[in-house]
């Protein structure tokens, strides 16, 4: 079948708005009587709140409302098992930057003056800034119900690793460290709230998850969901930083309710860093056993994540780190010990490639180390361990389509890998790294049997097609891709489809833009909704033209007999005929739930990792290393990504390029640097995301494995390729100068240090990771 819309590079619908300044982001909203909301933040990393006195703040001219933690005492959290946060601290602060009180005022100046006049009496408590230290600390714990400051630990054992290692011809272990990161989306978070005289609350927010926000507002504010409307304006990037209900959203709502006026709370960039929810600091200890030919017999992994002061997505993050050791290679035996630890730092959460990225860096690095020890090349050792499509992994993940072999073949070919690997002059190197990711989680975050995505397609007498979806466009192109699916099914011009999205009064439930779920899940829902419309139109036209319905073709804005194309009606006529017959509006309703087989096993923690389909990626990086300064420059990156089918190749390539960019940042420059709970680089100069001059040439290659369950065969494209980029760079650095950097980011200092060490102790194997092993054993 030849597609009309699917597969064509398509600029975003409504793309005129952002290029003309017409796109309205949350902070751009202007409402009559709008007040400025500001949050007072804790200067201490851990302290009891003895007293909060707001009386002086209330007397500042222009101040309309002041609230404290007591006004928002209901606990919430993105995970049902992690309801440990309040929007403002109630009796204890657990990190520098945690909100303590908030004001709404006529001006920024009045709001800031009021914050200065709020008096808080703190009683400091011992604070912990490192996971290993926190795990071994005496009481009082950061949360009284979390002994040893361990949020959650998992001890998974699939297959039999003892036997697996016994069967191995060679075993190697190594430890790695990855630092805390921030998403650094260009738009700082913002929320606007308004409370009307009918007692209805309206909240606009730069969120990836309007539905979870809706639920949480209801819970914390004690309002039924039907009295709350959540709208998502344009969102200036998310990457996981906006995919859970956040304090400022609830604060804006409460201030609006208290003041009776609309209130806007926009974060400064510094506040964004303290709001955080990025990748955690992570200690990784990894051991892989292989046969002489490179075939993996067993994998053992310990991970300790420093999740900061609250749970956020933490339990999911620590599970992903272990669960996604599987589903990329065929590993018969896996043992995983994961510890999510609480510290007095801003909470970590989900960030692009959630949970899987850091262990992937470790795994792909160690795989290269083992390959070298065995005299294998990086491609061969991976090829020896390929999965087969349509398999179930040892930890009960169902893999359907599997494009990894093709991804590797394509990047190896495009990069001329074998002409360069181990052959480039000293200081230049090339490396390979692979990765995979879920196309949405097989199980919902909330414990619910409801479909994960719902789409309504409505067609009325004007012939326009309304696509109502609860998905959150955040720049990834999900509005356009859903419209493309509907246009394809109905054989109409894309411009006929108008997307109505992200308004809880108008659009059906969708769980949101996280875990790369939207194209797969909402795409399937849109497909189903559009097919219902098509069936209805086909029925009417078939009777009118006396042509069997299954012979009707929807194409080029017409409905016609495939065997006699002249015999047909225009799309508008078909709509008119259907409306004439039944009246009302034509409505198609689609819903998507992952099939039971894609919901994983029954063991504790089995709910994280399963997905209806996995994407696969391979990246090759070519680097140059300045041996005088230690500086690594990435010259070129080739990334092939198996996205099932590229519904909108323009958007898929954009996602690959963006993922490469974020991987590049994590590999070379990004880390949140903290001292005593304070962030030393809470700004976009000091927290160094890649700029144009740092950027290599990126060659993105689309691989299409045509997934059996994805809409038109599509899988995810937004996250999966990031993780492979980091080990590709690390492996390239090794190829260039023979040093293995196992702590991210790969800074000039670390490269120089490693080069010095290498000269001193040439030929000595890497050190054993005693610190992590003993800390875990103690716990």
């Amino acid at each position, binding site marked *: 079948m030849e597609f009309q819309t699917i597969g064509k590079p398509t600029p975003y619908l409504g793309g005129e708005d952002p290029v003309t*300044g017409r796109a309205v982001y949350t902070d751009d909203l202007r409402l009559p009587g709008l007040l400025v909301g500001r949050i007072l933040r804790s200067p201490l990393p851990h302290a009891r709140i003895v007293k909060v006195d707001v009386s002086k703040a209330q007397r500042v001219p222009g101040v309309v409302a002041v609230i404290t933690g007591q006004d928002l005492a209901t606990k919430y959290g993105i995970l049902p098992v992690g309801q440990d946060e309040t929007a403002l601290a109630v009796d204890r602060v657990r990190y520098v930057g945690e909100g303590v009180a908030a004001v709404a005022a006529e001006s920024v100046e009045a709001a800031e003056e009021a914050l200065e006049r709020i008096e808080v009496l703190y009683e400091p408590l011992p604070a912990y800034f490192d996971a290993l230290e926190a795990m071994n600390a005496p009481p009082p714990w950061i949360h009284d119900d979390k002994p040893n400051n361990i949020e959650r630990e998992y001890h998974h054992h699939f297959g039999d690793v003892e036997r697996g290692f016994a069967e191995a011809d060679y075993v190697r272990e190594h430890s790695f460290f990855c630092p805390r990161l921030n998403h650094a989306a260009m738009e700082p978070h913002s929320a606007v709230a308004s409370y009307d005289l009918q007692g209805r609350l309206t909240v606009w927010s730069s969120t990836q998850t309007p539905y979870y926000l809706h639920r949480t507002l209801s819970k914390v504010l004690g309002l039924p969901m039907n009295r709350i409307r959540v709208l998502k304006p344009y969102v200036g990037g998310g990457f996981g930083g906006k995919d859970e209900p956040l304090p400022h959203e609830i604060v804006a709502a409460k201030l609006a309710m208290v003041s009776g006026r609309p209130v806007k709370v926009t974060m400064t960039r510094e506040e964004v860093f303290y709001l955080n929810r990025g990748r955690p600091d992570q200690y990784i200890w990894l051991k892989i056993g292989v046969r002489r030919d490179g075939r993996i017999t067993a994998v053992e992994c310990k991970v300790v994540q420093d999740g900061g002061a609250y749970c956020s997505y933490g339990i999911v993050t620590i599970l992903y780190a272990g669960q996604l050791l599987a589903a990329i290679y065929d590993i018969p035996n896996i043992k995983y010990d994961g510890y999510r630890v609480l510290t007095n730092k801003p909470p970590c959460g989900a960030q692009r490639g959630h949970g899987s990225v850091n262990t992937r860096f470790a795994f792909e690095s160690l795989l290269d180390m083992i390959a070298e020890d065995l005299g294998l090349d990086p491609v061969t050792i991976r090829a020896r361990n390929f999965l087969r499509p349509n398999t179930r992994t040892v930890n009960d993940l169902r893999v359907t389509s599997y494009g990894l072999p093709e991804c590797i073949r394509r990047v190896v070919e495009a990069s001329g890998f074998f002409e360069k690997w181990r052959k480039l002059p000293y200081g230049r190197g090339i490396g390979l790294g692979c990765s995979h990711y879920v196309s949405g989680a097989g199980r919902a975050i909330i414990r619910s049997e409801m479909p994960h995505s719902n789409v309504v397609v409505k067609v009325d007498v004007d012939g326009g097609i309304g696509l109502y979806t609860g998905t959150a466009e955040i720049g990834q192109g999900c509005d356009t891709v859903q419209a493309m699916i509907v246009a394809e099914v109905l054989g109409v011009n894309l411009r006929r489809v108008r997307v109505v999205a992200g308004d809880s009064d108008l659009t059906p439930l969708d769980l949101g833009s996280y875990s790369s779920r939207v194209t797969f899940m909402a795409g399937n829902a849109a497909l189903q909704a559009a097919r219902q419309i098509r069936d209805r139109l086909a029925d009417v036209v078939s009777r009118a033209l006396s042509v069997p319905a299954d012979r009707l073709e929807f194409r080029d804005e017409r409905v016609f007999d495939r065997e006699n194309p002249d015999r047909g009606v225009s799309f508008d006529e078909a709509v008119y005929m259907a409306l004439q017959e039944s009246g009302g509006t034509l409505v198609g309703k689609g819903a998507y739930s992952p099939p039971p087989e894609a919901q994983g096993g029954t063991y504790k923690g089995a709910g994280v990792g399963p997905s209806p389909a996995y994407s696969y990626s391979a990246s090759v990086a070519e680097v140059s290393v300045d041996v005088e300064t230690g500086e690594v420059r990435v010259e070129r990156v080739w990334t092939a990504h198996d996205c099932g089918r590229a519904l909108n190749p323009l958007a898929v390539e*954009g996602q690959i*390029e963006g993922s490469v960019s974020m991987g590049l940042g994590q590999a070379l420059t990004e880390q949140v640097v903290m001292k005593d709970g304070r962030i030393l680089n809470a700004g976009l100069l000091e927290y160094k995301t890649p700029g*144009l001059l740092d950027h290599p040439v990126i060659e993105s290659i689309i691989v299409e494995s045509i997934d059996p369950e994805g809409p038109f065969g599509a899988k995810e494209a937004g996250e999966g390729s990031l993780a492979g980029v980091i080990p590709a760079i690390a492996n390239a650095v090794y190829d260039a100068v023979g040093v293995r950097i196992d702590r991210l980011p790969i800074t000039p200092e670390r490269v120089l240090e490693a080069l010095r060490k290498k000269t001193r102790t040439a030929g000595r194997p890497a050190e054993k990771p005693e610190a992590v092993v003993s800390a875990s054993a103690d716990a």
Partner: protein
Amino acid sequence: MALHDIRLKVNGVEYTAQVEPRLLLVHLIRDVLGLTGTHIGCDTTHCGACTVLLNGEPVKSCTVLAVQADGGEVLTVEGLERDGQLHPIQEGFREEHGLQCGFCTPGMMMSAYALLQQNPNPTEEDIRFAISGNLCRCTGYVNIVKAIQYAARKLHPPQ
């Protein structure tokens, strides 16, 4: 605080305003004039989302005081279209997928506009250097460069 009378042209329109001396140009543009296409991404002059042209030069309007623009001419993203037609730079960003979330886009386009004014036929290196003060977190910059090349070709078709 004493107010200052300022007069400036924004996108060809003459404005007068009474402003506090501490008011930043970006706040004048967004909050006083209501032109919200110019964005604030960092407050500290690093991200470039607030880039506008002041007297033909790209400036980060979060580090310019409104009073410094007195008597000057400002061009913002809202001033790029002519007679309902997108400027080739705008067209380029749309057609070449030079944006995803769109938040950095106005600032990017203003830097690109200044570049093409001064250098109608930039090399890729020229483009990279000219917009190196603007951060984008979505695109990996690949299509941003293509978008500017598109505009350059359209503004100055090869002979």
